């Protein structure tokens, strides 16, 4: 056993991803910003977690570090049984392709590819066909069967996000990270996406971590984690929109 592994115990098999004493510092000296200041958190398999916090609380940084898009200054993050710090760029890319799904706030799709090609993209890049039955089920569930040959420019914003969610699900990743997935949508489309994400967790056992600032969106999750100044300051299980809003107000005081 190496010292790294002794410092952070082997992840539980029920844990999809987690961070141990995660620090992220930008800049040096007076302009130093501590985006993450010792975050330890884990995300259980088959759960839908929302991360909330004011601007600058470090919620997006945490998401990026967990997903292997950014690296920590200190501490460790893992996806499944893999510690990200031990991987080089190619291996991290591979991990993102196979173990991680992404839904961004906007610009989720490659404009030159059709909806189907966008959904299949991570598998196509890896040169595998994926689980056809599962993919068909995902497509049926998002209700896009008749729009598969359309390009993103021919889809509405809501439809585009549904394609993005379908892509994240298609490769059956260990965990899906969603960064304000409904931020650019009207409330009707947003509600559809959120219900769909909750179904993916409930019915298919998917694990989703979502960053949001919208208490209504957070209420779709099983658990809400509150961040402030780069630290986990609170959390709440089975949240309601009102409960979350109250908690935010308390934290703001």
């Amino acid at each position, binding site marked *: 056993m190496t010292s790294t592994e002794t410092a952070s115990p082997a992840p539980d098999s029920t844990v999809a991803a987690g961070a141990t004493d995660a620090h992220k510092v930008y800049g040096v000296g007076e302009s130093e910003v501590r985006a993450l200041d010792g975050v330890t958190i884990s995300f259980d398999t088959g759960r839908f977690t929302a991360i909330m916090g004011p601007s600058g609380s470090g919620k997006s940084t945490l998401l*990026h570090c967990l*997903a292997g*898009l*950014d690296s920590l200054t200190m501490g460790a993050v893992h996806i499944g049984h893999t510690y990200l710090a031990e991987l080089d*760029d*190619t291996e991290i*890319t*591979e991990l*993102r*392709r*196979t173990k991680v799904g*992404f839904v*961004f706030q906007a*610009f*989720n*799709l*490659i*404009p*030159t*590819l059709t909806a189907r*090609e966008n959904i299949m*993209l*991570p598998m*196509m*890049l*890896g*040169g595998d066909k994926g689980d056809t039955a599962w993919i068909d089920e995902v497509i049926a569930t998002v209700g896009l069967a008749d729009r598969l040959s359309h390009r993103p420019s021919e889809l509405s914003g809501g439809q585009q996000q549904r394609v993005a969610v379908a*892509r994240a699900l298609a490769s059956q990743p260990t965990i899906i990270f969603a960064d304000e997935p409904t931020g650019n949508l009207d409330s009707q489309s947003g509600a559809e996406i959120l219900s769909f994400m909750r179904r993916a967790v409930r019915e298919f056992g998917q694990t989703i971590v979502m960053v949001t600032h919208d208490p209504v969106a957070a209420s779709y999750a099983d658990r809400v984690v509150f961040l402030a100044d780069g630290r986990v300051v609170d959390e709440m299980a089975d949240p309601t929109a009102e409960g979350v809003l109250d908690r935010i107000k308390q934290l703001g005081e």
Partner: protein
Amino acid sequence: MSARSTLLLARKSLRARLGRTIAIAVAIFAGVSFVVGSFVLADSLRATFTNLFAEINENIDLQVRASIAFGDESVAEREPIPLALGDEIAAVEGVAVIEPFLQRYAQILRPDGTAVTTQGAPLLGVTWSGNPDAGLTLRDGRPAAGPGEVAIDKATADREGFAVGDRIEILTDVGRQEFELVGTIGLADADGFAGATLSVFDLETGLDVLGAGDQVDVFELQIDEGADLATVQERIEQILPPRTEVITGDQVAEEAAQGINQFIDLFGTGLLIFAFVTAFVSAFIINNVFAITIGQRLRELALLRAVGASGRQVRRMIALEAFVMSLIATGLGIIGGIFFARLMVALFNAAGLGFPETGTVLALRTVVMALLVGVGITMLSVIVPARRAARIPPVAAMHPELGFAALSARRLVGGVVVTAIGVTMFLVGLFVRPGGGTGLAFFAGGGGLLLFLGTASLSSTVARPVTRALGWPVQKLLGTPGTLARENASRAPRRTSASASALMIGVALVSASAVFAASLRDTFVRVLDRAVTADYVITDASFQGMTPEVAAILRDLPELSAVSPIRATLAQVDGEQRGIGAAEASALGDLLEIDLVSGGYDAMADGGILVHDDTAENLGLATGDTVTLTFQNGIEDDLPVAGIFRDNTIAGNWLVSLETFERITELPPRDFFVVARLADGVDPLIGDDAVRASLAEFPQLEVRTNAEFRQQQEGQINQLLIVITALLFFAILIAVLGISITLALSVFERTREIGLLRAVGMNKRQTRRSVRWEAVIVSVFGAVVGIVLGSLIGIALAVAVPDNVIEVVSFSPVTTGLILVGAVFAGLFAALYPSYKASNMDVLEAIATE
């Protein structure tokens, strides 16, 4: 916004986009430096040679030489004049010094017996008394004096490692003889003369070894101090025999310079054509880069509009940016051009052309041209993008999609109109030919220009289907990176076609040259097959022709059944200058097939002349008629028409026998080439050996069998194609640079997209691959359009050329294949930087990009 703030904004914006600025500047720089280089090179060479000839002839007051009846004084072949005339001239009052001068063929041999060769420059033997006023200057040792002594030019001595005191063998028309090298000489400041070799003898020795007998070429005179030049010239004129003249030293220098300047002008014009092609290609790149970057700056420009800048101010800002940048790049281009010219001189000298020390002449005209090309093209390129920028509505700051209106319909119509006008002008120029050479240049050149512009504009309409078709195998082979390459190459057809256009033009010119050259070559092969029945063609490497001794030796060989030398001279018939060929009348029928339709070789042997049927028809001549020829030496002769022939591809339009030729002209006999035929039943291998062995004494001769001769001719045409391609290299390089710039800008535009692809699992290698193959698809697209357009142009050119030069139109699949392979590599090269940029993007930053 004041003028000052416009300036400030323009400067800031230039600095902020350094990469793009450099890209445009490189395109301007390359175009300008090629144009300036061509002018500077031609001007400098011209000045150098004019100076050199002025210096060589500085101390010569008068020259006596044979006069010519017609034609160009500077390149005429003059008959020799009797040495005895010198005594009479020397006796004329006012003549101080008289120097007879003789110039003939002399081949220097190395100690191992091989010939000292040149790149086609002449091998000269001349006479010199040692008088420093007679043009030559002594470098080492002393002038040759007496039999057995020679001096050679310093350039040759240095190159071949000869030193004063060495024994040196020289081969002349009289034979091979050993000399002692007693000195090295130069011409004015130069160590040698344009690659020629000089063997310098004293007069007595020269007359003897150069085989001149009692004749010299010219007398060079110096007059008494205080004597009046015109008076002395007049006195000499009085005593000169007919067909001789006396001219001033200044005129000699002028004529000599004029002769070489004709060549320099031709060469300079050739270079300039390629320079303008390069500039034209640069214009496409400049235009494309401006168009793209203004698209990318849409928000910024809209914001300027939103805060109160008028459309006019935005337009002026863009124009000012372009102006400043092009001015700087043009300045650098002028400096680059001077270096380019110097580099060319160095290259020529490395190739053995021995140019004298060249000054650098930067004429005002050159600077004006540089500004017209550099600043002019840039300002023209920026008109459309600047006008578009001025029309950006302020609201586009918030909604970029409102920025541009579609222009495609108007563009299509414009493209069709421009292409149609271009094709019409081009064809009119080639086939109708109004206004002679100038008309041809204007119509065909202008038409070609419009044709390229029109095609470039129209190619955007086929860009999508063609790039999709080209991308299909890429997609099949490379999977997702291939799909992305294909989709990206076809997603913006206008941009793809614009960035491929520059390459399209370069490839079109190469393809047109290839079709033209292949047609020329195939015609040549056909003509040789048909017209040359001789088995051997013997030529001289230095293009000075050879001694009649060669033909005489071959005639004595039992292995050969027919031998004829071919000579040529000029004559006037019916007031027009014409080339007259001479051959052995009795052997000609066995060696060349000229398709005689009436008359025969016997009448030719009897002093008659064979005439080509087109010429005969024009002049109303028939076999048996008499035609009056005036030769350059002034002799007029009436010759009976011995026959009419139909095929003039090898022997020209007029043919006389050697005897007739020798009767008319007193030029030292030189054979341009000798053709020979094997006797029946002689094994070719034995014949080859016999011919080569018999000519072993003449190391400068090139003996070729019929097949080798054909190969050599083909080789020369191929070489021409290589030279043209090499000259287009700059244009093609800029075109590839253009693809690279466009692609880099596209990659920049697609930052988010690339970030997303990387986030969902595309690795660096796949990212590089997709950009790389996108570049390949774009450049192959340009090459395909270029090959189609260029081949059509080449076919038109080949058809337009008279049938006796090109009678078949050929297309070379090998060349086309090479061009396509080249295009793939060009694409790979163009993608080096953009693909590196794309794969090394910070994923997080890329995703966060607006």
